[in-house]
């Protein structure tokens, strides 16, 4: 569905460019290493819009609509499932698949509800529920799917519940507090519903419902003392500090760097990236046909074998 600003107007040229470029990136091969570097006079919201474009292109793929079947679970697995009213998720421990005691044509599953304790068991027919294996901290009571389900529904109807109950790390955003604020900023709208990039991107560790057991994107702050190795499908480095501090810790076939030209270190970081290109003997690429760079922006891209 069409994304607008929170005032209902269409996205400005530079913002629409990043959204569409994100769509294009989803078609890039994962067998090579590709780098895309943008510089601009102010880079706020650029990485968020690029991420939305990329992820929304991937929504039509089977893995986003896949529902885990009951026979993938083992006794004792932590699982989450959608409540009957489709508004919240519950948590428990899988026991077994059984026939329903009331309707022999339905397959049910037995589970141990984490709120009611290990000794309580209930049975439900499964065909209205979504299941996910869950590895987060245990929660005790039904949790809303998202703090902004209306917006996610408007943006991705048919898919919203699947997106809200899925976990994967499609994109990693690497940036400081400003990147985090971009992702949380309620300035997008879709069919009259207002929301933030995080409502679509579902970024781990960002605000959703207090805890976020299900996520589609990662966020790494380069100022964090412990820098973890991250493996993802698309890495978006927002700002020079992100490149300087996190470059060697992220493995991704597609990397995008967004640099604010007022950032004092942008030139120095660009020189670092040119060295990356030289060492990898990457060959330069142009923008895809049909996409033209907005005035005031710079772009360079290269590709090398992985």
């Amino acid at each position, binding site marked *: 569905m069409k994304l607008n*600003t*929170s005032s209902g107007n269409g*996205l*400005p040229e*530079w*913002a629409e460019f990043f959204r569409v470029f994100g769509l294009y990136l989803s078609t890039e091969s994962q067998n090579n290493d590709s780098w895309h*570097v943008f*510089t*601009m*006079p*102010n*880079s*706020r*919201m*650029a990485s968020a819009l690029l991420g939305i474009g990329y992820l929304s292109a991937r929504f039509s793929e089977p893995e986003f609509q896949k529902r885990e079947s009951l026979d993938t679970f083992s006794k004792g697995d932590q699982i989450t499932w959608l409540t009957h009213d489709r508004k919240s998720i519950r948590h428990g421990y899988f026991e077994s698949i059984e026939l329903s005691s009331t309707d022999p044509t339905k397959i049910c599953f037995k589970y141990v509800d984490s709120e009611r304790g290990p000794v309580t068991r209930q049975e439900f027919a499964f065909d209205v529920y979504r299941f996910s294996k869950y590895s987060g901290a245990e929660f005790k009571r039904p949790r809303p799917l998202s703090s902004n389900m209306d917006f996610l529904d408007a943006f991705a109807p048919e898919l919203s519940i699947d997106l809200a109950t899925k976990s994967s790390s499609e994109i990693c955003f690497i940036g400081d*507090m400003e990147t985090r*604020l*971009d992702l949380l*900023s309620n*300035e997008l709208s879709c069919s009259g519903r207002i929301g933030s990039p995080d409502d679509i991107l579902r970024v781990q560790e960002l605000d959703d419902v207090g805890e976020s057991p299900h996520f589609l994107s990662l966020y790494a702050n380069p100022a964090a003392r412990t820098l973890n190795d991250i493996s993802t499908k698309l890495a978006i480095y927002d700002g020079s500090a992100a490149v300087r501090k996190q470059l060697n810790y992220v493995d991704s076939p597609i990397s995008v760097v967004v*640099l604010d*030209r*007022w950032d*004092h270190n*942008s*030139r120095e970081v*660009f020189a670092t990236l040119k060295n990356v290109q030289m060492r990898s003997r990457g060959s330069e690429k142009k923008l895809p046909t049909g996409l033209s760079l*907005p*005035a*005031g*922006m*710079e*772009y*360079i891209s290269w590709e090398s074998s992985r």
Partner: protein
Amino acid sequence: MTSRISHTTRAFEVRNEAQFSFEYVGEQRIITIRELWQQLRSEIKIGGGIEEYKTLFQYPISRVQGRLSALPFRFDSVECDLDQTINQLLWNSKSLDVDSPIKKIVVDICKLLFELLRIGDNPILPAIINSLDSETLVVIKDSYWKTDLQKFLKENTAFEPQVINVNRLADASDHKKIIYLGSPALLAYRPFSEPDRRFLLDPKASINHFIMYPLGDLKNIPGIIDGSGVGRILNYSTPVVFKIEDFDQEPTEWSAISSRQSSTKSDTEISEPARFVGLAGGNHIWISAKPDSRCRVLSLSRSGELEIEARQTSELREGEMIVERIGKSSPNLIDSVADGLGAKKFRTSQAIWKNALQKRISEVGNVRAVERILESDFKVEVLNLRHWAFDPRSISPASQNDFVKTCDYLGLKESASKLWKELSEIRSLHLKAGNEILLRLQKAVLKLSIDQVRESDGMLLIEVKDYGSLGIFRVEYCSDEQLNLPISEIDVVTSNSEGI
């Protein structure tokens, strides 16, 4: 509240629509002074680049022409300081030979300065008045003049424009119009590094008006990526007369203040690396440049409250606000807080220990001689005698064994045990004080409001329990160079007029 998307959109619009205009100020004497100054520089270089001549002539003339060519103060004002500069230059030139080419140039420059002094009126001011409106931001080169200029423009124009120095533009919001005082080359110049052209590549205003003398040939403003097309070419209506490399080594007012300090090396003083930081309100500080040293910076938490953050001094930036003690006579913060926690009653023991060491060093002659005695005759293992005797931060040796042996040498054998116990108490209370200080500062800062900080003109006082007043100062200038200074000169705010 403006959305973040709007901020970025606005930045694109402003930079894509930006216009540049260059208004030349027509005081020929100032251009002639510049030409003469260049000849002076050549003569000094030909003569061997004697540092004394640079200090006595080249740098003062460079500073005064910086004021004349980029600030609107009257030529006969205290700010331009022509009177004193002329007198000083002529006095200093008396030591030169009559036929010295340096003397001749200096005298010629002084004649022109004297003419300007008599004229009084500075043509930059009417140029500003003609261009200024209620939405204009004024940008200058040297942060030293920010407060004075703001006051001057309020008194001499119909408006109260905000004045910032060019290094602070990165944090500035978009404006309709910016008046720059000085040429693009002057404003972009950075000593020992590439010119900073960001304000030209991505301006913060649609209208960018330079009131300038034609100094510096900066025309080409490239983007970050070669051949990207975002670069600009500046088209000056009058040819510029000097090349950008002519700005090399031009000192600022801040560097004139920092150069008054000299590096020290003595047997008894403890010295450490420090770097110069210019502060608001006509103050400065030398902050510790040791690799692990930290300063306390006022910042905003995620919830929008004021808080104190411990920052590495190497990461301190212009525009930030630091918390420091005011004046050399004010006590050390950690000592004061530790005394409040109970260390005061043990200070007599600390004084006995240090006085005994200092007395013996004085009697023997020097630190090294005493160290040799302690090593050979008393078998003291880890010697750091200079710090034990003269560094107020050093409480005692780390090893009790070494302490007792040293006491033996000093004639304090009988009281060694008691002294060690009390000095250990001081050490433990200092550690406690270190943790306590941040809490107390945080408590003091919570009594301030963000509005108070904004309206403070860069200087505030806070009260800290068991200490008294500490100052919070905005950083106006950070030097990259380091100097070895006595620790008594480090981390204490001093007025710029001290030492003149």
